[in-house]
């Protein structure tokens, strides 16, 4: 442990600055943001929003400005750690992804809503000047996301309307895409790292992929409950009963013995196609039903796309982007909580709330158990940027998992 800082209240949100020099701690209940410095532990900074309240807080890409969203999304205040200037952005939109920064940190897009109409403003992060301001043809803008090349902005509508609008950096509408009209629409969106593809996951359990040249759909990826394609590999997690040598039993049982008795081992089995997966029909009269493709992620080398269909919550579908076909399905015992691709290689880490982390790569897949007594229920995970280690988080613990590199002889 390098430093220990104490904040005045319970922290709801914490974020590193982009140059890893500062840590931002936001306390929404008190409306306070405290910033700590790593270089100088004595340095302190405290931003009090007062009666304006605080709903969200984040760093700007240059690591020197803090954007606070006040309560009821009244405004976004841009506090500067370098100068005394404060900027305000009025009428921000209260939606899931209202603020988006480009990957190189130059531009920021903010979704706004004035007079019951949606607008997008593009700001230059260097001096917070407004570059472009244009309206969008959406009913109720749900989210915006920059393409990794920083030149195209995707904006999509609420799930009541299936609509994706693509804007160029200078505010021109490049294209708009709508797959169907009445049923529930878009659930999740992801850009491919090369900005070639835009994957749209919708409530009809399909993923549609648009290409960056014509912005038209090149394929639809379906998630049926029965897999019949012979070229798909299906890995199924199977529990194996713990083997115990009887001569080693002792009373009182040692700790290691006890933990191995109560914890179950599991491994992967390859199932023969056709395989039918565990399909759950959602309750019809609830809002935000657990239907459709809720999680989408491209691998770092742009070769694979991992998706999760909320109707089949125990399975991860891995698609090969070069052939646009289903390559692998991982079927787990419990419902998938989170998955993330390795930032360097095509390696996927999956966690399901059990004490095991699952890794898949084109060479095969493996189950890794977190060692320790009791249950370590992994709720989320996060890769290190070098791809050598990852963080596993449970409710009140975390553990670091190192991946050894095999020496190539």
């Amino acid at each position, binding site marked *: 442990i390098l430093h220990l800082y104490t904040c005045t209240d319970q922290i709801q949100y914490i974020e590193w600055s982009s140059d890893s020099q500062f840590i931002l701690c936001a306390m929404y209940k008190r409306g306070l943001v405290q910033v700590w410095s790593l270089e100088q532990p004595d340095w302190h900074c405290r931003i*009090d929003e007062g009666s304006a309240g605080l709903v969200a807080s984040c760093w700007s890409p240059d690591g020197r400005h803090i954007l606070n969203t006040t309560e009821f999304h009244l405004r976004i205040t841009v506090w500067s750690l370098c100068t005394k200037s404060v900027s305000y952005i009025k009428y921000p939109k209260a939606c899931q992804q209202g603020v988006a920064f480009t990957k190189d940190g130059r531009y920021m897009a903010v979704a706004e809503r004035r007079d*019951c109409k949606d607008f997008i403003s593009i700001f230059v992060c260097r001096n917070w000047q407004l570059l472009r301001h244009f309206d969008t043809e959406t009913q109720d803008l749900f989210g915006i996301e920059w393409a990794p090349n*920083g030149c195209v902005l995707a904006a999509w509508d609420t799930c009541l309307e299936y609509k994706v609008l693509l804007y160029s950096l200078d505010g021109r509408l490049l294209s708009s895409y709508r797959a169907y009209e009445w049923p529930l629409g878009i659930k999740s969106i992801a850009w491919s790292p090369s900005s070639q593809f835009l994957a749209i996951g919708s409530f009809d359990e399909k993923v549609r992929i648009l290409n960056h040249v014509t912005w038209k759909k090149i394929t639809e990826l379906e998630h049926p409950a029965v897999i019949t394609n012979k070229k798909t590999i299906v890995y199924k997690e199977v529990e194996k009963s713990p083997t115990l040598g009887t001569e080693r039993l002792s009373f009182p049982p040692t700790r290691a013995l006890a933990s191995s008795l109560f914890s179950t081992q599991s491994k992967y089995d390859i199932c023969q196609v056709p395989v039918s997966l565990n399909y759950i029909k959602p309750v019809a009269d609830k809002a935000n039903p657990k239907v459709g493709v809720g999680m989408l992620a491209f691998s770092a080398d742009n070769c694979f796309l991992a998706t999760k269909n909320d109707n089949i919550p125990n399975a991860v579908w891995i698609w090969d982007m070069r052939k646009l076909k289903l390559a692998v399905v991982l079927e787990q015992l419990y419902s998938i909580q989170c998955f993330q691709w390795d930032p360097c290689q095509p390696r996927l880490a999956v966690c399901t709330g059990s004490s095991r982390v699952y890794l898949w790569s084109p060479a095969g897949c493996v189950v890794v158990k977190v060692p320790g007594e009791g249950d370590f229920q992994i709720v989320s995970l996060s890769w290190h940027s070098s791809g050598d280690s990852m963080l596993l988080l449970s409710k009140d613990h975390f553990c670091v998992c190192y991946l050894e590199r095999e020496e190539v002889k």
Partner: protein
Amino acid sequence: MGDWRTVTVPLLSSDSKNIFPYTSERKSPASMSSEVLRLSLPSAKSMHSFFSAFCTEENIEQSISYIDRELTTMGFPSIYVESKGKELDLVSMVNCMNELLVLQHKNLRAQEEIEIQHLKLGSDMDHLQNCYTKLKEQLELSKREIVGLQERDRQLQSKNRNLHQLLKNEKDEVQKLQNVISSRATQYNHDMKRKEREYNKLKERLHQLVMNKKDKKLAMEVLNYVGRADGKRGAWRTDKTEARNEEEMYKVLLSDYEQRQKQLLLENTELKKVLQQMKKDIISLLPPQKQKPKERSEDGPVLSDQEEDIGELNKENMWELSCETVREQLTNSIRKQWRMLKNHVEKLDNQVSRGHSGALNEKDVISREDHELETGKLELEIQQCKEMIRTQQQLLQQQLTCDDDTTLLLQDCYLLEERERLQEEWRLFREQKRNFEKERKSFTEAAIRLGLERKAFEEDRGAWLKHQFLSMTADCKSENSTTPSAFLRSADTDLRLVRSASQQKRPPSVLSTTASPEPCQISQYITQNSVASEKPAADYLPNLWVGSDGKEETEECTKTWEDSGLDTLCRNLHMEQLP
């Protein structure tokens, strides 16, 4: 014919039954004909009686006159002579009888014919009646079928109508639901907008309140302002900066577009290369056109075009151009050649099929013969290859699957070989170890010698110093006498230390803390060499452990001793006090 009926012949005889029913009744022609039939076949007896029934001896003249009357009415000449009365003309009577016989014959024949016809007609009628009944039945059946089919058709039609109706209903419902949805959507939108406006008003109000309530304390409290990440100062907002922002944005966009265009250009050139390659391949696949005159006449103009195309488009520089016309030319030429190739393949297919069915054309026969020759050759080759494979397999089998003894022997041979190799290695290893030991021994001997020499030297030195001392200070006798023992003791300890160091490889730190500087130096040397000995390379050791080197080292050590002579003496003196 009615005359027959009205005439009642008053004759009663046993056979009159035949006549009465015949004469007293009015019959239909059919029954008449049947009676006539009956009449025509009387038995001889009845005939006889019949004849006697008409004319008896009492009424001869009456009957003759009756007959005469009948004959005259029938048109025959009278049987009386000159119609005088009672004289019969025999000739006319015979003529009349003959005429009557002829008539009778004729009538009989006619009757026969009529009877035959009657029979025919009867059978025809029966046949027709049967047909009629059959046809009537068929008609009935088909009528019933028609009725059934009509019934079914009606049912299906009604079902169809029902389904149409249902479909229409469903469509209407769908339409209605869609309308309902859209109307509800608009209603919801409207309501949402209204609520949103209210909400905006609330927000504005809240905003005003928040802004009005100026917090006394600073909203931001910072110990000291931090420098910017890129080290530059912030800029004021001016037109120039705005213009610069725009410029940068456009630069970013342009670079992205340029990159994409480069990629597309690369792709284009690749594809064009592939197309050119394909074109060349197609041209090479197509047979040379000169040998087939008839085909040439067909493809004459096409050929010339093709040659032209080849000439034009095979020029390297034409690739680079990406204008519309060049692209079109390329694709058109490839399409043309592809078509030609297709035709060629089709022709070959036809030739093959013709060859299968039997060809008349001499060329085909020749090609077939060639084909057969080729196939024969290939078959021979295959045979040879198979035989070779078989022989090789046999040889392999022999090699691998000998009887058990030989396999065991072979295995043993391999094992022996390995064992011998290992033994060789062991021997080498042992030799090296021995060398190592030898050298170590030599070194220890050298060290011991060194120690001894040192001891001797020390003794000499001690003696010399003693002399000096004695010469210098004649008073301190007792102290001096202890020194040589001290030295000896120290030398002994040195020796012991050296021996222990050489025999057990003790860590250098232990040695250095207990030993005096000379053993320190030696221990350093020892540790150097022990470290060297720990290294696995066998060839490394001999270089260090050569005896001559050891001697050199000991000479060096003695040199250092000589340099630090007095120092060592003082330390030795300190050593006296330690034990």
